[in-house]
């Protein structure tokens, strides 16, 4: 089977890759581009561990084909920190210990970044509904939600 040539943008960098028609964007990110931040949890769009943004829209990369990335802009957790300087959400997740095993964390960070860009002042209910598609089996969510609320408050103050 001939491979598909795809030209796209990942975290602001122009990227080219060859992929099979069946390969998902998640497969491509992890296995071809060595961006292993996005995780495969369920592979069926239920758990959100593979969350990335596609043209700014939050999606599950397991439910996007690599071929669909042609000409689009993808952002992953690897693009959140600025060099050694963590994104405020990443810093706050550490402070709150808002993670245990860490599998869900990249997806939750990408998802909450997308939320705060749209809504800098979400209610706790809004945060919980926005993150309903990001499953965490360790923390019980409480520290995650508190970390997000506190980051949002800090970022509002800083802006």
């Amino acid at each position, binding site marked *: 089977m001939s491979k598909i040539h795809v030209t796209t943008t990942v975290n602001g960098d122009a990227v080219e890759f060859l992929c099979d028609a069946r390969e998902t964007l998640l497969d491509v990110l992890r296995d071809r581009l060595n961006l292993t931040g996005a995780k495969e949890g369920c592979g069926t*769009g239920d758990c959100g561990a593979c969350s990335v943004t*596609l043209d700014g829209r939050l999606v*599950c990369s*397991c439910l996007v084909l690599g071929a669909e990335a042609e000409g689009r802009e993808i952002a992953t957790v690897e693009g959140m920190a600025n060099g050694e300087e963590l994104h405020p959400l990443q810093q706050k997740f550490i402070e709150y210990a808002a993670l245990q095993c860490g599998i869900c964390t990249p997806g939750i960070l990408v998802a909450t970044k997308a939320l705060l860009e749209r809504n800098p002042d979400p209610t706790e209910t809004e945060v919980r509904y926005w993150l309903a*598609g990001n499953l965490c089996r360790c923390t019980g969510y409480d520290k995650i939600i508190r970390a997000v609320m506190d980051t949002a408050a800090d970022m509002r103050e800083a802006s």
Partner: protein
Amino acid sequence: MQYHSPGSFEDAVAIAGAASGTTRFLAGGTDVLVQLRADIVTPDTLIDVKKIEGVRSITREADGDWRIGIAVSGAEMSEHPELGADWPGLVEAMDLVGSTQIQGRATLTGNLCNASPAADSVPAMFAAGVIASVTGPQGTRQVPVTEIPTGPGKTSLKPGELISALHVPARGARGGDAYLRFIPRTEMDIAVVGCAVNLRLDGDTISEARVSLGAVAPTALLVPEAAEALIGTTLDEAALEALATAAADACKPIDDKRGTVKFRTHVAGVLAKRAARIAYDRARARA
């Protein structure tokens, strides 16, 4: 599997016509790619429709009808500044499908063509009277969405045909719609029962109504007897009771892990009453 991304519906139909084996059209992919990954349906030909002009747009036509492109996501419907004011029930029904991530990809047309009896947006479309443009080798025809699903996972679309647009009628004066579903939690679940009501008022009296139920039969149902229970009334208690009875009588549900026949039948009547009250209030609030 061959992946194609044609730039027009004519090309999409030509590719489908020339293909052998299993063909699937790809819009949001939230069902097609799950089935692909799980080896439930492995297409030989996958036709990505998102490069076709106009499929990403929501347009109000000159006659007030809404044209919803087949690759418009649920999130784009929810964010649209005017669609939700005209058809809040339809937009809310689509918004109930899946998570934020799924909303970023899932489409109204996909929800219809996946043909799940429990699809949330489908009863809302039935009630709203949505029309589909169906494009195939013989050109394009208009088909009421009520004629698209024929059973779980099955549609009336012929091989090589695809939906090329959905048309939601002009809202017009004194109209309102609502969709409610029952799930055992607050988010991220599949409807045990869904009910959509769309009605129009003349003064305070209901002059037109359409009632649709989901997840209580092999396809979503349009229930004319339930609509008749509303028409000519001011949604008094007697009308609501007649509506609930008609809705329950129309149910032909299965027993499964999500709900029993008895429970689904009862809940259909309860949701019909609640959805009718919301639709009625919305219609009264509109000039």
